[in-house]
């Protein structure tokens, strides 16, 4: 069921804004998925899911069927998300305790989680919990559980730091959150798929694959290109096809 796609280079526009990036991630979440959206930028993906998507949101503090942020009278101190922000409950919601919630995550039942990151390596290693600065108090929360638990881990980040240092790297220099766990990387400049065959670029925004290749220390290839090492066509399964019935 795999479809070989070609990379789309959007050269007639600038990089993606935060909202556009969130919309792009939302587009790639298969209808009916069970999804955990990390704190910060990933949370905004929810605003771009179509109402009929059937996507069910999980929050690791013990809920499936989480609704949008609570406003005004909806605010209930007993109903918060993982970022401790008051949220709402949708029809079909359920509550469970922390051990059950993380069993759900660790057991591989979530289809997708979307996380922010300091760095992602070419093998899909993720660093997003600690700068490693000795002056920083370390805090991990549920980041490591999400990284290793979801069937697919999508990362959202800018591709470069403000001073131009790439955040997609051969090897993470920040302390790791999880090994080889990221399958897709959504950035302001490009979307990357990460797999056993390496890093492929499926879309670019305001830049080209060639330009990206020159700015990164990681070998990136357009989708559908021939992997010179292995001689195989690099192909990408459309997200919806990942979600076929179990049998």
């Amino acid at each position, binding site marked *: 069921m795999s479809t070989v796609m070609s990379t789309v280079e959007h050269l007639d526009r600038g990089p993606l804004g935060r909202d556009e990036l969130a919309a792009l991630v939302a587009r790639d979440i298969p*209808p*009916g998925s*069970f999804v955990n959206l990390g704190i910060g930028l990933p949370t905004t993906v929810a605003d771009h899911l179509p109402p009929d998507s*059937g996507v*069910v949101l*999980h929050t690791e503090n013990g809920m*499936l*069927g989480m609704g949008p942020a609570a406003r005004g009278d909806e605010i209930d101190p007993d109903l918060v998300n993982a970022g401790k922000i008051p949220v709402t*409950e949708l*029809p*079909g*919601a*359920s*509550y*469970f305790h922390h051990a059950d919630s*993380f*069993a*759900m*995550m*660790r*057991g*591989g*039942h*979530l289809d997708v989680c979307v996380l922010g990151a300091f760095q992602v390596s070419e093998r899909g290693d993720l660093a997003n919990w600690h700068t490693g600065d000795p002056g920083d108090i370390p805090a991990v929360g549920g980041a490591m559980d999400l990284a*290793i*638990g979801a069937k697919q881990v999508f990362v959202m980040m800018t591709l470069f730091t403000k001073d131009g240092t790439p955040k997609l790297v051969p090897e993470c220099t920040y302390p790791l959150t999880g090994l080889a766990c990221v399958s897709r990387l959504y950035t302001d400049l490009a979307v990357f798929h990460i797999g056993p065959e390496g890093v492929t670029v499926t879309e670019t925004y305001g830049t080209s694959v060639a330009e990206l290749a020159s700015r990164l220390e990681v070998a990136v290839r357009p989708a559908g290109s021939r992997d010179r090492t292995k001689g195989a066509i690099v192909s990408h399964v459309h997200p919806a096809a990942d979600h076929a*019935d*179990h*049998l």
Partner: protein
Amino acid sequence: MTTVFTDPDEAVAGIADGSTVLIGGFGMAGMPVRLIDALIRQGATDLTVVSNNAGNGDTGLAALLAAGRVRKIICSFPRQSDSWVFDGLYRAGKIELELVPQGTLAERMRAAGAGIGAFYCPTGVGTPLAEGKETRVIDGRTYVLEYPIKGDVALIGAHVGDRMGNLVYRKTARNFGPVMATAAALTIAQVHHVVETGALDPEAVVTPCIYVDRILDLSAVEGTS
């Protein structure tokens, strides 16, 4: 996403030969009888069945065994007064038995559903059921290393489901259902009836919809009383 079925045969479609099938119920309480009957008609064979008991009388799991579809059974209590079908097959050497203490059986399935690679369990230490298993002394107590039991399919009986797949159970018919639902790649639940999404109290949902792939609505099945 959960699909609601009104035809038992459609609800069990696609179960492959050689599957490991987790079957809920403790005695008849929570036993997914209609799904088992459909599985017999469906024809999958060479199955490994995981269930607390090994069938009662001549129906349900016992009928599946009698039809010769089960290569191996993993259970805690195969010896009941009316387990004559299993009894005959076992004595004839036609079925393999892995006997597991009841709590270890439940915990091994929980581990499969919860992504635990293995766990040190105090049950059975020093008994024949721990023979050949790795042990370790932790804080002065001896434990046996136990591995997850993962199902390809779970067939469970619940009380009510909603359209999204959330389940509630009734009294001691809850038993293995919630654990098996987490431990199988494909979970199929028979329920007495299906309600609209939002009709179940979110605080009282026992099996969240994420664990349920298919629901058989018994109230809509022809011939169900």
